[in-house]
C-alpha cells in the first residue's frame, strides 16, 4: 500500500469524523458500522471476482442465508410448532434430499440413454410428490400455531455471535451446491444463473413460513451487546458517560454502536488477515494464474474447476458472515429487504470502485460507497433546494424536483461507476 492509498483511508476517516462533528456522533458511528459490514461484503465479492474472475451476481442470496442463520441459531425454539410438525418437516426434507441423491446415483450408475432418463424422471417426479405429501401437512400444522408471533419452528437458542459462523457455513453449503451446478457456465450465463438462484433463495425465505416466518419477519433477535435502555437506567453508566460530556441517551447510543464497531473491526481484521495471507502465498499465485489464463493453468496441472469451486465457496461464506452480522445489527430479519440492486449490484460497485483484486481496495470501496449511498440523499436534497431557490414557491417543476430528490442516489452510483470504469478502470487502489 503506497502513501497515496493510505491517504484514501485517512480521507475516509476524516469524512466520518466530519459527519460526527457536523451531524452527530451517533450518525457517524452508525455509518461506520454499516461501512464495516459493507467492507466485509466487498471482500467476499472480491474473493470471487478479484481473485478468480468469477462473474457471480448471486451475492444477495448468500447475504440472505446469513440473515436466516441468525434466526435459526439464536431464536428460542418454538416447542409447540416442533410437536405440531417438526418431524414431518424433517422427514419431508429428508425425502427431498434422498430423491436428489438417488437421481444423481442413477445418472452415475446407469448407461446413457432413454432408460436412464425415464428412471431419473420417475425418481425425481415421484420424489417430488412424496416430498410434498409429507411436507405440506406438517407445514400447515406449524404455520397454524399462533401466527401473529410464532408460526415457525424457531431456532436453536444459541448465542447470537455463533450465528455468524453458522451464517458463513450455511452460505458455504449453498455455494457448494450452486457452484457444482453452475460454475461450468460461461461468464454471462453464470451471472444470470446466479442472479436467478439468489432470487430463488430469497423467494424461499419469503414463502416458507415454517422456516423463518416468511414475510411476517422475525423481530427481537438477541444482541451481543447491551441494550441502550438498560444502560440509560444504570446510574454507573450515566455517570461514566457524563464524564465524557455525553448525556445518558447519546452516551448509551454511542456506546452500543462502539461495542458493535469493536466486534465488527475484529471480524473484518480477521478476514482481512486471512485474505491477505492467502493472496500473497503460492495459493494466491495459483489463483492469479487461473484468472489470467485458464487454459494455460490447466495445462500447468492446476485443477481449475476445483479451485473455482473453492474460491466461490470462500467468497460466499464471507458474504454469509456479513449477512448474519447485518441482521444482528438490525435486530430483525425482513426477507423483503433483500433486493438485487442493494445487495448485489451495489456491492459490485464497491469492488469495482475500490479496486478488484486488491483486498484493501475492496475495503475502501465498501466504506466509500456505503458512505455515499447514505449521504448522497441529504446532499441531493440540499443541492436541489438551492438550485431551485430562485423558482417561485408554487412552481410545479420545483415541487417535482424536490419530490424526486431521493432518486439522485441511484443516479450518482451509476455515474460514479461509469467514471471509475472509464478513467480508473482498475479502481482507486489497483492490484499490484
Amino acid at each position: 500500500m503506497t502513501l497515496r492509498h493510505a491517504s484514501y483511508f485517512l480521507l475516509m476517516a476524516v469524512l466520518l469524523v466530519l459527519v460526527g462533528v457536523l451531524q452527530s456522533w451517533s450518525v457517524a458511528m452508525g455509518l461506520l458500522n454499516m461501512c464495516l459490514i459493507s467492507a466485509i461484503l466487498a471482500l467476499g465479492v472480491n474473493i470471487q471476482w478479484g481473485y478468480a474472475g468469477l462473474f457471480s451476481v448471486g451475492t444477495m442470496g448468500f447475504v440472505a442465508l446469513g440473515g436466516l442463520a441468525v434466526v435459526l441459531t439464536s431464536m428460542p425454539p418454538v416447542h409447540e410448532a416442533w410437536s405440531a410438525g417438526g418431524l414431518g418437516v424433517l422427514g419431508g426434507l429428508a425425502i427431498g434430499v434422498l430423491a436428489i441423491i438417488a437421481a444423481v446415483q442413477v445418472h452415475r450408475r446407469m448407461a446413457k440413454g432413454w432408460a436412464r432418463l425415464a428412471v431419473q424422471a420417475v425418481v425425481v417426479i415421484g420424489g417430488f410428490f412424496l416430498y410434498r405429501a409429507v411436507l405440506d401437512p406438517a407445514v400447515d400444522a406449524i404455520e397454524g400455531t399462533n401466527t401473529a408471533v410464532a408460526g415457525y419452528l424457531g431456532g436453536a437458542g444459541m448465542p447470537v455471535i455463533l450465528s455468524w459462523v453458522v451464517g458463513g457455513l450455511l452460505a458455504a453449503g449453498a455455494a457448494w451446491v450452486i457452484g457444482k451446478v453452475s460454475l461450468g457456465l460461461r461468464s454471462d450465463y453464470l451471472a444470470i444463473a446466479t442472479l436467478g438462484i439468489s432470487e430463488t433463495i430469497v423467494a424461499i425465505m419469503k414463502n416458507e413460513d415454517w422456516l423463518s416466518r416468511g414475510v411476517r419477519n422475525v423481530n427481537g433477535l438477541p444482541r451481543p451487546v447491551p441494550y441502550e435502555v438498560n444502560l440509560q437506567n444504570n446510574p454507573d453508566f450515566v455517570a461514566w458517560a457524563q464524564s465524557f460530556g455525553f448525556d445518558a441517551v447519546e452516551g448509551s447510543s454511542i456506546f452500543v454502536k462502539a461495542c458493535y464497531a469493536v466486534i465488527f473491526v475484529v471480524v473484518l481484521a480477521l478476514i482481512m488477515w486471512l485474505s491477505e495471507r492467502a493472496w500473497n502465498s503460492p495459493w494466491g499465485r495459483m489463483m492469479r494464474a487461473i484468472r489470467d489464463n485458464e487454459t494455460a493453468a490447466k495445462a500447468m496441472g492446476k485443477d481449475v474447476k476445483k479451485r473455482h469451486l473453492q474460491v466461490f465457496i470462500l467468497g460466499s461464506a464471507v458474504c454469509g458472515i456479513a449477512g448474519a452480522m447485518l441482521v444482528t445489527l438490525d435486530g430483525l430479519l425482513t426477507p423483503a429487504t433483500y433486493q438485487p440492486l442493494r445487495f448485489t449490484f451495489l456491492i459490485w460497485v464497491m469492488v469495482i470502485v475500490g479496486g478488484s483484486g486488491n483486498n484493501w481496495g475492496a475495503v475502501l470501496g465498501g466504506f466509500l460507497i456505503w458512505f455515499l449511498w447514505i449521504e448522497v440523499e441529504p446532499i441531493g436534497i440540499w443541492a436541489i433546494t438551492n438550485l431551485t431557490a430562485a423558482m417561485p414557491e408554487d412552481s410545479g417543476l420545483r415541487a417535482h424536483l424536490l419530490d424526486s430528490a431521493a432518486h439522485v442516489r441511484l443516479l450518482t452510483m451509476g455515474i460514479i461507476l461509469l467514471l471509475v470504469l472509464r478513467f480508473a478502470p482498475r479502481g482507486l487502489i489497483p492490484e499490484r
Partner: protein
Amino acid sequence: MIRVENLHKHFGGFHAVDGASLHIAEGSITGLIGPNGAGKTTLFNVIAGVLKPTSGRVTMAGEDITGLEPHELFHKGLLRTFQIAHEFHSMTVRENLMMVPARQAGEGLMSAWFQRRKVALEDEEIRRRADEVLEFLTIDHIADQKAGQISGGQKKLLELGRTMMTDAKIVFLDEVGAGVNRTLLNTIADAIVRLNKERGYTFVVIEHDMDFIDRICNPVICMAEGKVLAEGTLAEIKANEQVIEAYLGTGLKNKVKAEVGHV
C-alpha cells in the same frame, strides 16, 4: 512413449482429425509437419486433453490416457505449449515459472494461513529453480517484468521454461518458432536439444520452419487432411510423392478459396 490409435475428432461435419495413428518413441524429438488445416493442432489438443476425441485411443507408456483432463495429464508428465503464447500476463516472468511445480504446500489454504515458515522454505527452493531455468534460457534479465509486457519470442521461451519447472516426460511444442527471430529461435533449439539429452525429455514439435525441423527433429511425421501421411527422416518425407501432392494440393485449394472469397 505415446501411442495414438485411429483417432477421430469431428466438429459437426468437419473431420479435423480423421483416423490418425502414430507412435512417438521415448527419448525422441519428433517433428510434426503438414499443410495448414492438416489437423496437427487439433491432434495436439486431443492428446493434451483440451478436446475430447470423437473416437479412438491415446496411450502413454501403455496406460490409457484418452479423455483425461489437462491437469491430470500434467501430473502424468505430459506437458504442452501453445501456438499463441498463453502467458499469465499480470504476473512476473519469475512468478510464471514459480506457479508450475505441482503439490506445493502453499497451494493449500491451511498451509498458506498457518504454516508460513514451511511455505516460505519451499518457495525459496522453487524460486531458486526458477532462476536456474531463467538463466538456462538466457532471459534472467527480465525475471521481474510482467509477462504481459515481454516480446513474443520471450513469451515462447517462457512457455518452454514452464515445462522445465517440473519433471516432464513428454512435451508438446506447438509452433514454438512462430513469430520468433533467428537468434531466439537458435536459443530455443539449443534448449530443446539440451533438455532432451540432459533430462531425457521426449519432444513433439509442430513447426513450419523446415530448417528448424531439420536441425533438431528425427523422426518427422507428416499429416494431411486429418491423417498421418508419412513418417521418416525429413529427407525421406521431402521425397515422398504423397507429401508433395498434399502440400501442393491444399496449396492450390487454398489459393482457389482465397480468390473466390468467403461468403
